């Protein structure tokens, strides 16, 4: 195994400050790119939550039953939140790239065709456009000139929310690709129940499609079924895959066979001390 051997060569547990240890890891840790991608993912979701839920108030989505005046009023009410929140999103959108790369990497580590990883990468790279950016751009345009005709404001309002909530197809297919990859995989990169969780996630995304038809009620883009329940499942799903990706990186041995299990915590400490001593 190359990773522990490499660590045994260089001085292992640094008695220095956290900063010097961090710098050491940046220089020497063979998994640094993986950890960088993982931390980028975590940071991105934090920015996402703040931008969408707190600043711009686009999540939970606004009421689709609003008329033109109502839509114009919504833009006015959230004017600064939208501009600031989405300005942040435009800056950090690039962070989705390491996230998608990490997930595609997980599929490359599996014992399956590389096509799975590549398909996922392509799908999710494209999906950011309708799935997130379009909403950001359109609503920013809407907030930019509050004195615009309310009919136009409502058009932007509809375009923004529908493109975000309604274009679940890409994410749905991506979940299915990941699910199939995990089910066929023999390297035990992810537990099988996570494959089934991908299926649950995909199914709740199918449920969102009636949002194109209904302006009110449980199937509207802010409805209990089309948005709230879907968001709960998605939230659980996201938390789970971030944890599983972390476990994958910790278990990674850069081989091509089955991924070893996570070592019990105590063993990890004693073995590294033993190596440092020898």
């Amino acid at each position: 195994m190359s990773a522990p051997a490499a660590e045994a060569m260089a001085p292992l547990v640094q008695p220095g400050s956290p900063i010097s240890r961090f710098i050491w890891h940046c220089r020497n840790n063979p998994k640094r790119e993986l950890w960088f991608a993982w931390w980028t993912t975590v940071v991105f979701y934090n920015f996402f939550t703040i931008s969408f839920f707190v600043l711009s108030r686009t999540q939970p989505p606004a009421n689709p039953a609003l008329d033109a005046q109502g839509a114009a009023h919504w833009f006015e009410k959230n004017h600064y939140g939208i501009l600031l929140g989405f300005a942040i999103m435009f800056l950090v959108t690039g962070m989705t790239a390491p996230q998608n790369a990490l997930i595609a990497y997980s599929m490359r580590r599996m014992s399956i065709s590389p096509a799975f990883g590549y398909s996922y990468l392509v799908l999710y790279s494209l999906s950011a456009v309708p799935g997130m950016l379009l909403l950001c751009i359109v609503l920013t345009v809407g907030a930019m000139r509050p004195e615009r005709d309310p009919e136009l404001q409502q058009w932007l309002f509809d375009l923004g929310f529908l493109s975000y909530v309604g274009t679940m197809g890409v994410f749905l297919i991506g979940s299915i690709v990941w699910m199939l990859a995990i089910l066929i995989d023999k390297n035990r990169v992810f537990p099988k129940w996570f494959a089934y969780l991908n299926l649950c996630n995909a199914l709740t995304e199918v449920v969102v499609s009636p949002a194109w038809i209904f302006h009110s009620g449980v199937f509207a883009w802010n409805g209990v079924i089309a948005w709230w329940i879907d968001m709960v499942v998605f939230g659980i799903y996201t938390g789970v895959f971030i944890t599983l990706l972390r476990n994958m990186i910790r278990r990674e041995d850069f081989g091509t066979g089955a991924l070893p299990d996570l070592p019990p915590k105590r063993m990890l400490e004693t073995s590294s001390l033993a190596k440092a001593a020898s």
Partner: protein
Amino acid sequence: MTTPAGADAPPNEFDEVKAKVQDHRFIPGQPDMWAFVLFETLVFTSYFVVYLLFRAQHHELYLQAQANLDLRIGIFNTIALLLSSWAVARCVQASRDGAYRSALTNAFMTIFFGFVFFVSKVLEWAKEIRMGNGFTTNEFFQHYFFLTSIHFLHLLIGFIVMGVVIYQLWSPKRRSQELVETGATYWHTVDFLWVLIFALLYVVR
């Protein structure tokens, strides 16, 4: 079988019997599929809760709309799925005993009864739509079409799962009992979810 520390009594026959029974306790199929079953049941329960809460808000409307449904079709659908569940349970037993031809027959029966449900459901939808009750007609039919459609989607996935089961049973080189049981667990879920949907859409007043 170890005796409790300090006890000098001879090994209890009862303990040995208990051990045998304990040894035979197993989880059918992958435990992972059970996690899926339980989680998906929760998701469906949330849809049911929404339906019941909204139903109470417009009780008269829902009652009138519900009168458009034919209970007999619902019962027929339920029995068809119960037959398919029965068939897949028999399939698991046969496969466990090594009677693979019987297992295959039962697996095909499962698909057959599932298909009966499929056809019946499509015909029922067509009938309702011809009567003027579509997805957007009123709130009751929104829920009706939604619940039956999302269940229908699970049924379609079930056909794929049964395909995997049959593929496993076909050749002596494969025949993973675990996969057969996992597939059966999924299929039973499709069945019991329908049992709940049927009660809520067709019978509840």
